[in-house]
């Protein structure tokens, strides 16, 4: 293996391919963050595999100087599952978009998470189909005007994190394309998680959906529109840090409170990343549907609660069967069961 693992730098993970995203695309920032983060994983470069579907975001593997497979629309989780099953030593990443992962590939995303295959799934959510020139996507807000919805879209969007949680994901987080520090921290814990980890990255598409996350990103106003969640910390946000999220015990719904006015700090909900019910409520906040809209968007680790993973269990089952024996013998197999001799 590679002796120089520790000495790898961002440059080692930069491929010789010219990056072809539009100027200003959020994908650039994500790429840089991941290239910079890679050396920290202490893994030989040749053990990193990036698998993607189709979309602007799915071009990502070409720019990583690792193994990469740019596959077909929506199927990256399945192909990545095959890679991981064939060689569990590999560090397998899935790079996907909101259309790729939640429209055409919704089924595979759901099942990869449910099975808890050891994959790091990064969903670049720009709430639009970038590559096919700007049609609305399953995460677009109601009313999104696009070439295919000239009067505005009429169907309700879904929240990627809510889908992931509903699918049984054991690790779900949300971060933002241009916030390198936050994104790095989230991806690091995602990578360390044994099993499927799911990270939704809010990504700006300046060409077809510009500024869609501006509220959450703009330093001047973001504090009112997002809540940075941390395990064990109260859900406090706002420029004055005086707003909080409280669980209304009667309605079992979240509500926004002002600390010191209608609520004390002790009453504010404390984030517990191992609590699924809580994660579902927090993950859906700020969603593009009517219910969540007034709430701030939660960024950070929404849910992290390890459970048995598919690859480990598969290996355990196989070892049980083999009991230390080497490969089976074909000649024995062919002669197993009932045979007879003809002289």
């Amino acid at each position, binding site marked *: 293996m590679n002796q120089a693992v520790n000495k790898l730098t961002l440059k080692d993970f930069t491929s010789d391919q010219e990056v072809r995203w539009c100027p200003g695309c959020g994908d650039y920032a994500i790429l840089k963050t991941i290239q910079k983060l890679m050396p920290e994983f202490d893994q030989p470069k040749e053990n990193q*595999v990036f698998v993607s579907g189709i979309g602007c975001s799915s071009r990502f593997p070409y720019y990583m100087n690792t193994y990469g497979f740019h596959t*077909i629309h929506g*199927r990256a989780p*399945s192909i990545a599952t095959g*890679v991981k*099953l064939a060689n569990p030593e590999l560090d397998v990443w899935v790079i996907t978009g909101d259309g790729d992962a939640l429209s055409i590939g919704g089924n*595979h995303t759901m099942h990869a998470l449910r099975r808890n295959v050891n994959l790091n799934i990064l969903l670049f959510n720009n709430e639009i189909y970038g590559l096919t020139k700007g049609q609305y996507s399953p995460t677009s807000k109601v009313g999104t005007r696009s070439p295919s919805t000239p009067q505005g879209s009429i169907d309700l969007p879904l929240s990627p994190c809510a889908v992931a949680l509903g699918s049984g994901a054991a690790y779900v987080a949300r971060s933002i394309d241009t916030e390198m520090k936050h994104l790095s921290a989230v991806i690091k814990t995602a990578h360390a998680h044994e099993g499927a980890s799911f990270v939704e990255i809010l990504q700006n598409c300046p060409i077809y959906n510009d500024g869609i996350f501006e509220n959450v990103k703009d330093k001047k106003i973001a504090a009112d529109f997002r809540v940075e969640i941390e395990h064990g910390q109260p859900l406090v946000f706002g420029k004055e840090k005086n707003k909080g999220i409280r669980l209304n015990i009667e309605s079992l719904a979240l509500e926004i409170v002002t600390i010191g006015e209608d609520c004390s700090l002790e009453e504010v909900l404390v984030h517990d990343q191992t609590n699924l019910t809580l994660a579902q409520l927090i993950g859906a906040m700020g969603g593009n549907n009517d219910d969540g809209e007034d709430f701030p968007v939660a960024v950070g680790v929404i849910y992290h609660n390890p459970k048995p993973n598919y690859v480990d269990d598969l290996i355990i089952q196989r070892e049980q069967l083999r009991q230390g024996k080497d490969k*089976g013998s074909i000649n024995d197999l062919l*002669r197993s069961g009932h045979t007879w001799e*003809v002289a």
Partner: protein
Amino acid sequence: MTVEVEQHQNIVVRFAGDSGDGMQLTGTNFTLATALHGNNLSTFPDFPAEIRAPVGATFGVSAFQIYFGSEDVTTAGDEVEVLVAMNPAALITNLKYLVPGGLVIIDSGAFNDKNLSKAKYESNPIEDGSLDAYKVLAIDIHSQVIAAVEEFGLGHKMALRCKNMWTLGLVFWLFDRDKKSTIDGLKAKFANKPEIANANVAALNAGNAYAETAELPSGIEVYKVPKAEQKPGTYRNMDGSTSLAWGLIAGGQLANLGVLFASYPITPASSLLHTLAARKEFDVITFQAEDEIAAVCAAIGASFAGSLGVTSSAGPGIALKQEAISLAVSAELPLIVVNTQRGGPSTGLPTKTEQSDLLQAIYGRHGDTPLPVVASSHPGDCFDAAIEAVRLATKYMTPVMLLSDGYIANASEPWLIPDFDEYDAFPVTFHDKPEGFTPSLRDAETLARVWAKPGTEGLEHRIGGIEKSYDTGDISYDPDNHQKMTDTRKAKIDNIADDIPLQKVHLGNNSGKLAVVGWGSTYGAIHQAVKRSIKQGLDVAHIHIRHMWPLPANLNQLLSAYDNILIPEMNTGQLVKIIRSEYLLDAKALNKVSGQPFKISEIESAIKTELN
């Protein structure tokens, strides 16, 4: 008692009963005893699509047919000479297969008003003379079996479940088969429930004793079926599914690769998944995916990572996989796609057989995506066909379609077990040298792309479905490059024609008046029909194609040496289109799409028509 003895070179026996009557188990036990007796044989289970049809319903009838004898046997036979009918529904749906003068064994205990009306009989056929054309042996098996197992105190329902063994005992006596293999099997199967094992054995013995001691009606003989001349060696009974599964495991070993078998359940392909799932002591992982697309994609991912990816389905599932197969063609990765064909279109006839996916196999997908297609032709042949598919996939870095069908998958035949040590290995060498590496490197002779697997230091690279530069493997939209890559992908597959055996003539002369050309599971019926026709002095030959794409290099020349070409297929004419378009030969079609295999006689009469 005194019995007449009837000599038969070959004979067909069909067991038919309600789904719950255990006819498949009866059939397989009779098969084993017959194989041990030294006959050649071939079997075909014919079961209903419904899992649990109402008792006594015509659509719940399950049948098992066996053809056996001293001559070579390659089909499950046309004309049934002995029919076992466990209830009215079984009789009414199966009597049409029985030859006039044939023997029908009936459980008269099941011919009550309720069952008769369920089968839509207006009167009891045992009594109303409608079976006058046949020899009838009607026994109240119900009462016989209740009496036979009384001492085990099983209760009425459980006791009646031994009916099939009682009947088998009777049939064993008629054919002078040894009960031992069945008794051993029952004892092993019910090792934890000795009272069930003992009751079944008692029923078997009672049926056998009944035949020996009771006065059978006159005209009912013991059938003497002489032993066949068989090649010496060790034999086993082999069904197509097991044979194919084992061939995949064997192919993986010959290629020195782990196998990832990813599949989504579908009739009649699921048994492959089941067989392999139980064989994890070999280097095989099975993965039940969420759908067929996920299955083929997982297989492709495994191949990218350096295993042999295999996926399997029937027609509808193969259609779903086609986009991903095109990716494997574009990325030039090995992949085996098994299609156990069934009656189509759509859900069609899921439990019945058909050969209607040949065009899908060769020309399916999108873009110009040539790939090799290999067809197995009988159960034992699946083993070698699977190995051949693995050889081609790994040597040429290409997906390979491996065709089987519902008939082959479920049929079984005695199989002379080969010595696996005599198989030539074809171990894969993964590329491992960073100097001058690009993912586009090709073997100059085979045109196969390099296989550089993740985890190999210094060979980090990206591949994908976008057109790639011939020289570097990087994305390329260059017009000339696309032409060159398309030509290269085609040439790579075309060249395989030089790496597969020349087409041989299976029976008959290398030229003449008529060649009957087949592929897949029509092998047995064509073989027998041609054999019989040659015996009658007709100038006819049998050619059976395994390599459906690319076709054998000499096929055009070979077929051109015959005045006429007849192509029987269980579809509306697919191979015939290919032969006509590839070679401009005036081949004629003989088609059947009833869900049932060809009868020998159907092909025989087509040969006669053709030669007149």
